């Protein structure tokens, strides 16, 4: 159990920055989550045409020059915005932070599709003559791009890389930061996930061909996990970066502590490209609980991964029942119902949206739940209206992805 760990092995969250389709700071995002404010809007992308998406509207020029934006990628701009905001939120004495001891760990579902599609579109105008293919293509599409641009922008000389972990990537970024702090590889971990996926038509077209792209006449009702009328995923962009520190370091500088990483786990289904396996998902959650020295009953809120696909939601609910049974006090919620699926950012954003519950005791609901699918009828599924739970001390955050990648992160309220 983490409280038995030495302070140099206990990892705490001391800052966060985010951009979501319904908020560009934790306070805005949380307010949206407590007031049912969706961020899903009509959207159009080349070749695919009109669809729906979760679109972010943060100020790119707050931390980047126009040239940086032109040269770089949207994923990196999102990452840079979130990281700057996280560092400011953590009240770090940034000019005097030893930059070689800062690590950047950014989860991504995919990277390079947007930039490659753009180049192919562009050279089509030159009869596919590759001499018009941009020299910026490689630095834009290398898999470390979003983390690397954060390093360049902030002058961070410690390790930087992305973690390609499908839609478990937000959690994977956090877990990597925890591990690297414990190993002593860095003194400050900037960890989380980003998504620029709404800018690739391929994501929409592929989900559509799979029968997994959400459609609804009212964009704000399109993302509806657990509802009988759900018909797929709303793709979203977004990002969330956390500042993680060892407890001893956070204490010594008197940092505000959002919560302590109490446990985590990642595993694999090894069964199917797209269909999740609830047995392995349940194993993943149990492993995270074991590592945290907790039983399921310790958990106050489970932030579910559910994306609004017919089968995926049912599979996760099966896994949750395997762990919590039918009569648990644990509350279950979901943030994708507001913003869609922010892919590589989803895990990090969804965790962030729940952290204020440590202070206000409120569990934000999953919205758009008009006709509950009986197969998704979890006990204490918080539907449509926020619920005051009383003291909230433990949050478990699920994030799963294609190729059977599962992750769970447990954060507990910091109590000294």
């Amino acid at each position: 159990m983490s409280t038995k760990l030495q302070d140099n092995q206990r990892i705490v969250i001391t800052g966060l920055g985010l951009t979501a389709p319904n908020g560009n700071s934790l306070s805005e995002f949380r307010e949206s989550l407590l007031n049912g404010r969706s961020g899903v809007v009509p959207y159009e992308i080349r070749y695919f045409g009109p669809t729906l998406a979760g679109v972010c509207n943060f100020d790119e020029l707050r931390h980047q020059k126009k040239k940086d934006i032109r040269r770089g990628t949207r994923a990196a701009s999102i990452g840079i915005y979130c990281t700057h905001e996280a560092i400011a939120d953590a009240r770090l004495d940034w000019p005097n932070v030893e930059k070689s001891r800062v690590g950047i760990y950014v989860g991504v579902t995919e990277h390079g599709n947007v930039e490659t599609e753009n180049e192919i579109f562009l050279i089509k105008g030159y009869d596919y003559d590759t001499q018009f293919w941009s020299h910026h293509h490689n630095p834009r599409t290398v898999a470390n791009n979003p983390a690397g641009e954060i390093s360049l922008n902030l002058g961070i000389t410690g390790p930087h890389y992305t973690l390609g972990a499908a839609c478990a990537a937000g959690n994977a970024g956090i877990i990597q930061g925890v591990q690297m702090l414990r190993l002593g590889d860095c003194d400050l971990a900037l960890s989380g996930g980003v998504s620029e996926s709404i800018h690739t038509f391929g994501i929409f077209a592929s989900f559509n061909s799979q029968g997994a792209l959400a459609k609804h006449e009212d964009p704000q009702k399109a993302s509806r996990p657990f509802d009988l009328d759900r018909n797929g995923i709303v793709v979203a962009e977004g990002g969330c970066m956390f500042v993680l520190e060892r407890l001893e370091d956070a204490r010594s500088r008197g940092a505000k502590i959002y919560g302590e990483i109490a446990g985590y786990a990642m595993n694999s289904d090894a069964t199917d490209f797209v269909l999740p396996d609830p047995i392995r998902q349940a194993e993943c959650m149990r492993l995270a609980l074991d590592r945290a020295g907790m039983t399921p009953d310790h958990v106050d809120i489970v932030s579910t991964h559910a994306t609004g696909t017919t089968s995926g939601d049912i599979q996760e609910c099966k896994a949750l029942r395997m762990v919590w049974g039918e009569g648990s006090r644990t509350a279950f919620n979901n943030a994708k119902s507001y913003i869609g699926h922010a892919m590589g950012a989803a895990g990090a954003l969804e965790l962030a949206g729940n952290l204020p519950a440590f202070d206000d005791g409120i569990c934000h609901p999953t919205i758009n739940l008009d006709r509950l699918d009986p197969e998704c009828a979890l006990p204490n599924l918080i539907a449509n209206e926020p619920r005051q739970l009383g003291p909230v001390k433990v949050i478990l955050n699920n994030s799963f992805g294609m190729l059977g990648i599962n992750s769970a992160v447990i954060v507990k309220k910091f109590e000294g």
Partner: protein
Amino acid sequence: MTAAEIKEAVLEILSDIAPDEDLSNLKEDVSFREQLEMDSMDFLDIVMELRKRYRIQIPEEEYPALASMKSTVEYLEPRMTEVAKKQ
């Protein structure tokens, strides 16, 4: 294209490549890189944009001719005239 038109075309390219820079006081006989925040990738953008917009092919060994506005215009003038004739 006249020398003045070529200068205008190059300025237009520069304003896209270096959108944060004030180009109004650009000295013609001083290198771009001394006056603007430009690196080798930006320089390659000039080459690429000339290729895209005017179908001008510049061999790598002739890149030094694009160092300043003056040298660029001098280098491009006969080539841009040729382009104009073709069109």
